[in-house]
């Protein structure tokens, strides 16, 4: 190909790209405007397929609106969303975890959506949602998201191993432990280490996601992230007690796998671990497994109070939309909320009480067992520095479990490092004065 031909090719390519950029996506003319909504989220697993089906139903039932979903891995997604948002290129609708909301709320591109919950009747009845969760979504005097679900941590059990150990109810069905004593008895009963070398052939229990495990135990011991005066409480005695319990299971009797080889969830899948704490969203993983007989239950009460850790997927709306697009986006968000039962099928606990009270939901064993914990879920703190806070907790729990610091030392270091971080970054510890303590 000569230079002249190459030049002509480049010119044609440039023209083509320019034309494509200017094209508004329509073919021919039409009086009826189709509103396109971009919907971003991190539902890359089976939950993504469920969401695609909900979107298909929406697109079919709303001819004037077309929703396109883009999904990517959560960590990458949040980076892209933040950059797009501050550059006024955010999608019309996007999903954010309640724990991440404080960071994004401060970036200033999320719109208030109070009108969805106002009017008579309101498009979405506020009293159908958990009050504590809705409080998590209030920023600068307005609600900035529609919660899709609540995903608490809970207890997964291998039903066959429970039965083998005689942990059954009057009908002979596997009976999950409820109290501390029952939990410890179950851990012992299903622990099989014939030579006592600390490498059991079968573990009664294993830690899985260390930080989530710790965050689930925190409220049980009366723990918290912040004091009422807004100062950090990461090393409060109650949190120390929760971490000390985690450490204690590897002391003396070596009841959990060593931290160097701690693969709780993998062990559970392989039937080498009888019980494990994890999130309701792991159900999708279990559904793909064959031959594992599992049941779910609320977290056993290890400390003086019932409690667990939970988070929520929240649909948010971009600011600066024209009226038609905003109305279409709000309708889409409400539609997804109305289809909470479909969403539950993806391994989630729907945010709407009406969905949870349906017979269909009650027949979902894992989801409904996890849902029992909603009255006492401790949500992550409303801190714009939540990533650093979680990372400091990661370090502290890991250090304590590996025996490189006492629970007190590890959590004190976490608190000090977190305080240094917010001071250097110029961030407040908590999002605003509405923050729950």
């Amino acid at each position, binding site marked *: 190909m000569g230079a002249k031909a190459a*030049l002509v090719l480049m010119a044609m390519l440039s023209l083509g790209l320019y034309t494509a950029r200017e094209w508004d996506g329509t073919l021919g003319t039409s009086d009826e405007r189709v509103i396109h909504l971009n919907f971003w989220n991190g539902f890359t697993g089976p939950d993504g397929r469920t969401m695609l089906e909900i979107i298909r139903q929406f697109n079919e039932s709303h001819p004037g609106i077309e929703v396109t979903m883009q999904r990517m891995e959560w960590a990458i997604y949040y980076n892209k969303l933040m950059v797009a948002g501050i550059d006024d290129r955010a999608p019309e609708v996007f999903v954010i975890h309640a724990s991440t909301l404080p960071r994004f709320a401060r970036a200033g591109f999320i719109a208030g959506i109070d009108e969805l919950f106002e009017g008579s009747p309101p498009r979405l009845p506020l009293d159908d949602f958990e009050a504590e969760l809705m409080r998590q979504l209030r920023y600068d005097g307005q609600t900035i998201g529609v919660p899709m679900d609540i995903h608490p941590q809970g207890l997964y059990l291998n039903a066959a191993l429970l039965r083998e150990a005689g942990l059954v109810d009057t009908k002979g069905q596997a009976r999950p432990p409820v109290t501390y004593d029952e939990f410890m008895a179950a851990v012992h009963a299903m622990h099989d280490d014939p030579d006592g070398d600390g490498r059991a052939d079968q573990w009664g229990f294993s830690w899985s996601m260390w930080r989530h495990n710790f965050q689930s135990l925190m409220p049980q011991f009366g723990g918290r992230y912040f004091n009422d005066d807004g100062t950090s409480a990461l090393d409060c005695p109650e949190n120390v007690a929760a971490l000390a319990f985690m450490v204690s299971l590897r002391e003396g009797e070596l009841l959990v796998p060593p*931290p*160097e080889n701690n693969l709780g969830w*993998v062990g559970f899948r392989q039937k080498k671990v009888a019980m494990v704490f994890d999130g309701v969203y792991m159900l999708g993983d279990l559904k793909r497994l064959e031959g594992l007989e599992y049941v779910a239950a609320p977290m056993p009460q290890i400390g003086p109070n019932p409690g667990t850790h939970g988070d929520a997927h929240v649909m948010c709306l971009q600011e600066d939309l024209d009226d038609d697009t905003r109305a279409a986006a709000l309708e889409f968000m409400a539609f997804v909320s109305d289809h909470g039962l479909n969403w539950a099928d993806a391994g989630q606990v729907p945010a709407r009480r009406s969905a949870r009270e349906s017979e269909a939901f009650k027949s979902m064993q894992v989801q409904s067992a996890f849902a029992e914990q909603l009255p006492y879920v401790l949500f992550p703190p409303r801190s714009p520095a939540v990533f650093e806070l979680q990372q400091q907790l990661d370090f502290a729990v*890991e250090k304590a479990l*590996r025996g490189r610091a006492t629970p007190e030392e590890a959590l004190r270091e976490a608190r000090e490092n977190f305080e240094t971080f917010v001071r250097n970054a110029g961030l407040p510890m908590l999002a605003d004065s509405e923050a729950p303590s």
Partner: protein
Amino acid sequence: MDWLRRVAPYLFITPYALAFTCFIILPFFVAFGLAFVKLELTSQQPAAFVGFDNFREALGDPYFRKSLWVTVYFVVLAVPTTVALAMALAVGMQAMTQRWARNTVRAMLFVPGMLNVAVAAILWQWFFNGEFGLFNHLLESLGLPRLPWISSRALAMPSIVFMTLWWTVGGSAILLLAGLQQIPGELWEAASLDGAGAWKRFTQISLPMVRPVLLFVLVINTIGAFQVFGQTYLMTRGGPELATRSVVQYIYETAFNNYRLGYGAAMSWLLFMLIAAFSLVQFFVLRKVDA
């Protein structure tokens, strides 16, 4: 059409030059500017010029220092072993008299380098898996105890270096082989006739003659090692207990998880200066030896 002939070369390089300017030159200077600014995307404060404050904070930041040590540890482990192994492989391939054998080995060495870091890291994550990984399975079948390859603080980084060797040594070996093949065969023949043994021929002929390529391989590997991120992030997320969190990962987390863009830019400039200093030292030392 003389003008067309004159202009055509520039038009051909224009797309690359534009991309290079947009994605390398421009960010380079933007990052330089950001390094002197306090810009926290979630602080609700406008960007403010803070002079050298970000640099001062980095130098006093224990996490930055820790990640820097982790990175230097990786460089010290990975670069000499990669270059030494690559040289050994190149000499071995050079010694092969059958062309097909050399080409086969060369292709096999090159294949891992064609894999994306994500693919390579996930593959090796399974190899290293404590419970059901390939390596522990092999150890057990030999009657040896299992090893916590990437879950112990002591073993995690050497394990990642091992994976990096597998992944990158082929490219370096092929470059060095190309360098060795440029050496006139008469030199070795003459040395052999003069009674020089294999080691003497290697140290007195091969090594000096291949030094320019060796310098290139060394500098490229050093720069790459200082920027290690993919394999550590994907295989261990920087753990256990930050034992493998490289400085690039810390910069990434600072800038894109905590949204501290100014501080992240300052740390990236410190890393850039460190890499530049190491590269210059290597360049001058090897050039001096050459002279």
